[in-house]
């Protein structure tokens, strides 16, 4: 009987309004490392959450372990089956030690199980870490470890269960290269003829290095599985992005205004960004592309002072501005529209006019500080009409509007404020197709009126369609700036999946030549400093 270690057959998963997975089948053999690739939102994480019982699959599909159908309802049951997942985000307790974390909930006990046998706890942790050849002090507090150390603890924890199937979701996102090698050694040592690993990553070089086969998902559907050794990376990327671009619309041409509105030089943050440089011109839509965690939102947040900058100069209209919080940014004419409208963008239970006037209340109040409601109402009516916000009245609470109209309210607020530069973070997230078109029209119209726009988006077709130029980021750096003519799905994806240390040899991408300064240089040494 040669049943596979794991078979996933015809699994689907729907969320309200979205089909996240459509009839996906993948399998994992004994002793195999299977790569799982796909763009943002392709369904990788959903897949793994089904496997570990965090989500429940739709009727129809089945999961087999060693040829037996299994029913996984929660992480505990998955663990009992020998399925363990290392999540992208840590699930560690910072104020406990390494050993306390690894065996949390499974501590060796003594004295009628009321007390913890710390001696046994540390002994077995030491044994585990020695066996895995991880050099961490079991008594160190996890909160005081570097991110890489925490990652190793997470891995040790997963391996401390008797795992048969180990799922790793972007485990190297925070590791330096030597640490990645450590991790790979651990993974390779873990694999025996009784175990297997599913390795999710968007770093193509890692997939190439580590895996035996690669399965590709796209838009929630299974695309195919290829043999890693015999398939060029280029082909895997093509499988990942292969969808047809739904429309062949390209950015609207703009009259050549060369006025530079915003200059960013050497923007860095302690946590992620490294030497980010770019310019933004009047009336330009500058797209920011990259995978999740590449640092696009971080650029926006650092720009408007929502996060602390460690270095960098920002110039507006040629003059250096000092921005240390969003209020400074607003005064300088920089508006940021967050990716999470509900959390950071809107006062959901307040009405449309209150939301529209929030950033410019000063303009609507008299010297005594009293707010002129009539003036607000008038301005709000104007915005509602101008942006075609569909609402029964300006007194309607924001939460009752559709996603597209909520977004327009947020846009309207910044228009009321009259900013020169508008930063849109995922402007069409959670908005249906028709409303997306309206948002696109609106952006184009704003650009035509001379506003300069930074558009961060995870939807590549959207970036390609809207942007006059595309900035591509990977791992906190800009890996390339492409003009509309040069930007294609393939060229952008290629830049977005570059890891930091690969020699620049095989990059013959258009657009790289005029972007010398943005190339990652001097890459290795400063990682530790950055992690603090």
């Amino acid at each position, binding site marked *: 009987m040669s049943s596979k270690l794991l078979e996933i057959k015809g699994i689907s998963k729907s969320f309200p309004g979205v089909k996240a997975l459509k009839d996906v089948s993948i399998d994992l053999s004994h002793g195999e490392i299977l790569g799982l690739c796909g763009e943002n939102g392709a369904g990788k994480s959903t897949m793994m959450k089904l496997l570990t019982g965090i989500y429940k699959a739709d009727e129809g599909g089945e999961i087999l372990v060693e040829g037996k159908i299994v029913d996984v309802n929660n*992480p*505990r049951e998955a*663990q009992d089956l020998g399925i363990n997942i290392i999540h992208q985000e*840590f*699930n*560690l*307790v*910072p*104020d*406990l030690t390494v050993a*306390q974390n690894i065996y*949390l*909930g*499974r*501590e060796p*006990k003594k004295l009628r*199980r*009321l*007390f*913890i046998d*710390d001696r046994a706890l540390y002994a077995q942790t030491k044994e585990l870490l020695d066996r*895995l*050849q*991880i*050099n*961490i*002090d079991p008594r*160190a507090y996890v*909160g*005081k*470890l*570097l991110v*890489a*150390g925490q990652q*190793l603890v997470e891995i040790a924890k997963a391996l401390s269960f008797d795992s048969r199937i180990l799922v790793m979701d972007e485990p190297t996102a925070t590791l330096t290269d*030597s*640490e990645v090698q*450590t991790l790979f*050694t*651990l993974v390779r040592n873990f694999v025996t003829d009784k175990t297997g690993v599913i390795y999710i990553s968007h770093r193509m070089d890692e997939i190439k290095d580590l895996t035996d086969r690669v399965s590709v998902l796209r838009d929630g559907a299974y695309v195919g599985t290829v043999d890693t050794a015999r398939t060029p990376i280029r082909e895997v990327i093509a499988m990942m992005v292969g969808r047809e671009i739904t429309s062949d619309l390209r950015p609207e041409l703009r009259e050549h205004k060369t006025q530079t509105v915003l200059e960013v030089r050497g923007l860095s943050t*302690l946590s992620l960004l490294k030497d980010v440089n770019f310019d933004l011109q009047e009336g330009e839509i500058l797209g920011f592309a990259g995978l999740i965690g590449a640092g696009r939102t971080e650029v926006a947040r650092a720009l408007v002072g929502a996060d602390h900058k460690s270095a960098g100069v920002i110039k507006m209209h040629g003059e250096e501005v000092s921005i240390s919080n969003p209020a400074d940014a607003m005064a300088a004419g920089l508006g940021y529209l967050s990716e999470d409208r509900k959390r950071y963008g809107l006062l959901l239970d307040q009405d449309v006019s209150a939301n529209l006037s929030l950033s410019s209340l000063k303009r609507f109040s008299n010297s005594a500080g009293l707010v002129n409601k009539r003036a607000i109402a008038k301005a709000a009516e104007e915005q509602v009409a101008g942006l075609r916000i569909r609402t029964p009245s300006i007194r309607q609470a924001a939460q009752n509007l559709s996603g597209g109209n909520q977004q327009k309210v947020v846009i309207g607020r910044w228009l009321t404020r009259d900013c020169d530069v508008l930063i849109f973070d995922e402007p069409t997230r959670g908005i249906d197709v028709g409303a997306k078109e309206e948002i696109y029209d609106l952006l184009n119209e704003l650009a035509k009126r001379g506003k300069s726009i930074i558009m961060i988006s995870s939807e590549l077709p959207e970036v390609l369609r809207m942007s006059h130029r595309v900035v591509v980021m990977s791992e906190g750096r800009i890996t390339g700036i492409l003009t509309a003519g040069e930007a294609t799905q393939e060229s952008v994806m290629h830049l977005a999946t570059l890891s930091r240390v690969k020699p620049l040899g095989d990059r013959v991408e258009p657009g790289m030549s005029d972007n010398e300064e943005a190339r990652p240089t001097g890459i290795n040494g400063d990682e*530790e400093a950055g992690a*603090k």
Partner: protein
Amino acid sequence: MTATTVSTEKPAGGGLKLRIKGQLQQSLAFTALIVIVIFFSFASPNFLTFSNFTAILFSTVVIGTLAIGVTFVIITAGIDLSLGTGMSLCAVMSGVFIVNWHMPLFAGVLLAILFGGLIGFINGFNVAILKIPPFIATLAMMLVAEGLALVISQSTPIYFDKVPAFSAISTGNLISGVKFPNAVLILIAVAIIAGVILNKSVLGRYTYSIGSNEEATALSGVNVRKWLIVVYTFGGLFIGLAGVLISARLGSAQPALGSGYELQAIAAVVIGGTSLFGGKGTILGTMIGALIMSVLTNGLQVISVPQEWQNVVLGVVILAAVYTDNIRRKGTKA
């Protein structure tokens, strides 16, 4: 085989700095205590005497006991506002059990302590199962306990005149020959027990774990709801004990004396370095915090600072303590 040695700890300098920062609050509190003691010693010759020393310890007993219990709750990132009036209610119940119902002393005391546990259990149930925010759940309990204490006692104190052994719990001297009240010995004993439980027991481990990262704790297979109830119940036992100790000291169960104690106890915990955001705290710190509170109160009285100004000073101390907590939190997050 390749040895997979990676530097996983922050560089020595940073690590040391962080470790110092972590203990800063506690050592800061300790230093503050010493400074305050020295200050009052110079300010008044009546301060540093044995009788005043025992008086300070004696006045620390009630707040200290409450503070120990609520330390556990606060480490889970919770709060308990029902400490003070809960203590009144437990005091009244001890009177009911021992005086009105003529129970044996030992049984009456035990039941009064368990009654505190019941208050904590209800708080824990409301927080963990009904998902009522701790602030609200225990605020409601504060009102309920305040009312019940008055209702049950019919707003009159219950006197323990006929049970002198009861008063001896607080005011007697177990160590013969030395005027060192039993209540202080009890406080020291429960502090040590609580310290051991917090550091060595399963309960203590999950107390820290829940407060530090509740979700990760749950994902690790720990029944967070159950353990939250256990923590609140355990903390409640100290409310009961405080109720017994204060009644024994006064010789009577006073139905309306407890309110206000909850804030002093919480202040003591915070001054002692326990983070209101959970995950951090020690019993030793809490004891130091409680001592700072009573030394300040006592010292200000000794040097004849008016009552009104004493409160101002206490308020400023609490602000300073929480501010240092904030700085510390920022420091460890970076």
